[in-house]
């Protein structure tokens, strides 16, 4: 079933591609093939692969249960929050919080998460900013 849903999504995607190809404005500089032809061929390949997935689906993959899924969604949420706060709160603070969450979700105890978060964040900061001279995100406190 998963393959069938994915195949259908693939076909929708290929149709979207055809539609988006129609939006490309032709320029006055022209080559015989133009900017539209190859994307249309690829959209065709994608559409056919979607059809095959619908008609010949593989065995069902092992999907995570509701709890695991919620955990994964939360992890992605933390990633997004991290990406957004990085330029505002600076590297050290946002990385410490994000990595503490990851340590916790990967099976560390509360204490390990807190220590792990701080060690990972400060360790990476020391190594990359001071030894390698990379410019990490600066927050209001300069780190």
């Amino acid at each position: 079933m998963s393959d069938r849903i994915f195949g259908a999504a693939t076909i929708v995607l290929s149709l979207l591609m055809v539609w988006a190809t129609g939006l490309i404005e032709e320029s006055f500089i022209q080559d015989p093939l133009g900017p539209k032809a190859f994307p249309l061929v690829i959209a065709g390949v994608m559409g056919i692969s979607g059809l095959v997935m619908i008609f010949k689906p593989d065995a069902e993959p092992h999907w995570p249960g509701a709890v695991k899924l919620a955990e994964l969604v939360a992890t992605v949420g933390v990633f997004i929050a991290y990406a957004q706060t990085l330029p505002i709160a600076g590297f050290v603070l946002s990385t410490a919080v994000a990595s503490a969450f990851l340590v916790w979700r990967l099976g560390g105890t509360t204490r390990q998460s807190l220590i792990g978060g701080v060690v990972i964040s400060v360790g990476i900061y020391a190594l990359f900013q001071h030894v390698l001279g990379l410019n990490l995100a600066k927050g209001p406190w300069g780190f």
Partner: protein
Amino acid sequence: MDSLNALANGFAIALTWQNLMLALIGCLLGTLIGALPGLGPSNGVAILIPVVFSLGLPATPALILLTSVYYGAMYGGRISSILLNIPGDEPALMTTLDGYPMARAGQAGEALAISGISSFVGAFFATWGLVFLAPQLVDLALLFGPAEYFAMFTLAFATLGGVTSANQAKAAFAAAIGLALAFVGVDGQTGVPRFSFGNVHFYDGIDFLIAIVGMFALSEVLVFIEERGNANSTSTQPVTSIGRAIPPWSMIKQTSGSMTRGTILGFIAGVLPGAGASLGSFLAYTVEKKVVGKKGFFGKGDPRGVAAPEAGNNAAAGGALIPMLALGVPGSGTTAVLLAMLLSLNITPGPLLFTNNPDVVWGLIAALFIANVMLLLLNVPMVGVFARVLRIPSYYLMPAVAMISFIGIYALTNSTFDLMLMIGFGVFGWLMRKLNIPMVPVILGILLGELMEKNLRRALTISDGDLSILYGSPLAVTFLGMAVAGFVLPIFIAKFVTPKRAVAESHNDGTSD
């Protein structure tokens, strides 16, 4: 003997203190990355590219560092295979079959030493193969016109998808999505924006590094979170006592035949498009089992079952560099990542690389020899040090990997938008792993899409729109024929490869070598 002269010049470039230090750092890092379960050559090199790039190293030193990491990771993969029964990366899978039983029988030290020596033999001869074969391939490639290039790219996509995937439709989908992502941005030929939906961020196209790091590294973190607490991750007993790290002479003698056969098979598998190191080690092990027959005790700790696949996967790693450097077409996932590295250093691999930048190519090849010797010296006597790294729990390791992925991309682009894009690729990569869709064709599509379309349109400009130019030369017809065969044949011979899939699926991580 032009090659040997060029190689001597290469050594002159590589043998500076700075480059030797970088090679040593690369070897150490690579061995660690390879040894840690969950990090293999492709995601290891992937997270390091943006970091190395932001350091602003010149092309040759950066290449030396990253290829040392690549070779090192091929060595390191065996350590966790033998001690934990968990392959550090996919090519090391076959090493678990006899390596772990050896370790359980108190021969961990011998298994590690034999596998280290086999890795050296495989990589050493494959690097010589690179020295002599790559220039030949370059001579051939100089005859290519745009139509031949287009046919060759088609061949690369067809075989990479065909050989490595269980399902041709999914491989085709992966290639198509990669090519579609390559279209995003301003069209190089006519200057019109495509698939950018008026979003300024998309006008330059999608940086392949963002896609690679997201798909290889972030999706790995998601997989770890998902699999935490599953039974199969804790069922094996780690072997902690290593014992003697120097194998008896008789064991080296006993396994020398296996190393030779493994090297040859692995090298061939590496040179062929689409096969790569996983197939190299699989072939080496299966053939070895057939050759030795009933005299062997494979699966119960036969040292030949450790020597053959290790020689095979390291020889394949060297062999895979040949099409990547000479044609600009990578033969495996990791070489696709190395191609990404070259492109981000503004070096376009292919025949012109050998004529325009011989110092880069030969410096790199010399560095491979140096790295290989360093790795042997590091890996045989010091293997106990690396083995200790395996005690780092993954709940400290994977967060660090995720954070380094983020700062690598952020240091490169300073853009929150790109980080969000990377997260999107991470989620997409996780979904692809779940559905068993290969990721390497996506990467290859993003990397090669522009070149592929450029050659297609150039060919048709030459012929003024006549499509017959695409199959107008014997070389192009051969490539297209091979492409069709490489895509279609696996459907029929799938039943012969089923054992590999059965093993591979139990450790499915989608990032084939």
